[in-house]
């Protein structure tokens, strides 16, 4: 392999990891909700879209006030977007899913699709159906490689995405693994009825799951709006579908699985657009899903279904 080919390969890994981080953040929301109530929250992509909108609005507003410090913009935007988006997540669970608890599996699924359509139209009404854009907050980056050949470009934004994603995932892992509420979450995902009989308020745990999933989707939304500087009310659909694919790929119900699935999917898409054609990236992404489901139906890190009595 020539030097240029190696550098191109490295570039695709960088792009893939960036994309994969975003997928992974959204995928965690799918996987946690599935892990606890066994339902696919099809409105999750829209929750991410709302997170991106809030992010963009806050950044624009901060710009109007003349705030220029990048760390300050990042922290304020993340905080506000997480707050707003997770209250959406909580509200959706409270109004559209909790009243349907105990009904057949298909019922909350249909409710979720309804919520998804509702949120898309709600944002269109409030913010318009067109793209909303803004000036990039953080531009520039590093170039590596020969002056005359292929140069690897690593933007500051890509580094920021990776750092923020890793920080939030580490936080989530610690929370789930070490805290009491995290312990309650794990117990509920194994046997919700038993956890309830031992005195755990499972409705609270479920609400918390939606809040945490929405918070991570908000992080993804903020990062995406900073990266592309562009949002519209429909970005939730494809991103949600991809993140759902990532969650299934990694083994739905498993948090590390969702992280891995997101990264694998991001890398696959990035390589497909570089070495095949850009149009093939979705084909490869969903083809990969079908392949994994055929070979390993429980996903990369999923456990085989334990028989529940």
């Amino acid at each position, binding site marked *: 392999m020539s030097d240029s080919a190696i550098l191109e390969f490295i570039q695709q890994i960088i792009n893939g990891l960036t994309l994969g981080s975003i997928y992974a953040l959204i995928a965690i929301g799918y996987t946690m909700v599935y892990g606890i109530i066994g339902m696919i929250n099809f409105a999750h992509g829209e929750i991410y879209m709302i997170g991106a909108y809030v992010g963009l609005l806050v950044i624009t507003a901060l710009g109007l006030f003349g705030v220029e410090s990048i760390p300050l913009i990042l922290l304020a935007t993340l905080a506000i977007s997480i707050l707003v988006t997770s209250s959406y997540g909580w509200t959706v669970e409270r109004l559209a899913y909790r009243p349907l608890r105990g009904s057949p599996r298909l019922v909350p699924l249909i409710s979720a699709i309804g919520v998804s359509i509702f949120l898309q139209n709600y944002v269109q009404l409030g913010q318009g159906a067109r793209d909303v854009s803004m000036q990039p907050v953080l531009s520039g980056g590093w170039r590596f490689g020969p002056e005359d050949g292929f140069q690897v470009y690593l933007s500051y934004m890509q580094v920021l995405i990776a750092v923020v994603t890793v920080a939030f995932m580490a936080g989530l892992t610690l929370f789930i693994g070490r*805290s*009491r*509420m995290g*312990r*309650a979450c*794990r*117990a509920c995902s*194994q*046997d919700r*009825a*038993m*956890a*309830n*009989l*031992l*005195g*755990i*308020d*499972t409705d609270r745990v479920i609400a918390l799951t939606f809040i945490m999933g929405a918070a991570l989707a908000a992080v993804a939304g903020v990062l995406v709006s900073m990266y592309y500087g562009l949002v519209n009310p429909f970005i939730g659909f494809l991103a949600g579908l991809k993140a759902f694919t990532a969650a299934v790929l990694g083994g739905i119900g498993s948090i590390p699985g969702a992280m891995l699935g997101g990264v694998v999917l991001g890398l696959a898409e990035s390589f497909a657009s570089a070495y095949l054609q850009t149009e093939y990236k979705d084909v490869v992404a969903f083809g990969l899903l079908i392949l994994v489901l055929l070979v390993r139906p429980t996903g990369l890190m999923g*456990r085989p279904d*334990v028989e529940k*009595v």
Partner: protein
Amino acid sequence: MSLELAKTPVAQTPPLLEVQHLSMRFGGLLAVDTVHFEVRPSQIFAIIGPNGAGKTTVFNCVGGFYRPTTGTVALNGQPLHGLASHHIAQRGLVRTFQNVRLFKTMTVVENLLISQHTQLETRLFPGLFKTPKYRRAEAEALDRAVFWLEKVGLLAVANREAGNLAYGQQRRLEIARCMITQPKVLMLDEPAAGLNPQETRDLDRLINELRAEHGVAVLLIEHDMSLVMGISDEILVMEYGRPIATGTPAEIRSNPKVIKAYLGEE
């Protein structure tokens, strides 16, 4: 002389758990038909009967898992029906199931910490910043877990995954997990199922210890007659959803209706 004095001391203690007129209908099947019973503090009360007699249905109604068609369940005079499962547990009534239902991929000690969840502070702020109060509570929870692990002989395997324990160990862990919530009534659904004779004898000793040292009342469903007859203070026999006899083990053993239900007509 007042009537009160004529009663035996046991009868004088007010019932801890009171089940009245309990019936449960599933469509056309009357699974439980007007069952009454009372469990007094520190009493070991067993429900026995052939398969399909409705014993587990009674359990599910008492524990709030099913909503009974008619009848009331009261703990310490307070009605339990209509309460959410976690509130029933917080009032002091916990249960095990016929099949072991541990959190299998969590460690043994985590299984015991989970059931102390409600006694522990779970608000976000103290948890996030690990305040001294939070740490102290967590340490106390761990102490209680260690106490119960020692009690049921599982201290050596405290950090193993619960699903990897031997069956008898899993059964004991389930009991410890219930007892750590400091219940008033412990409901055990066939605790001896699948145990070998030695393990059954250990279980017998453990249940007696729980009653003697922790004052818990035990409501028991069991097929193992040697266990039931050995430890129960009072037995309720059911057949086809109906109660057919109540009494001490000696009375039950000689009751013709019970003999008929178990052995058929002569």
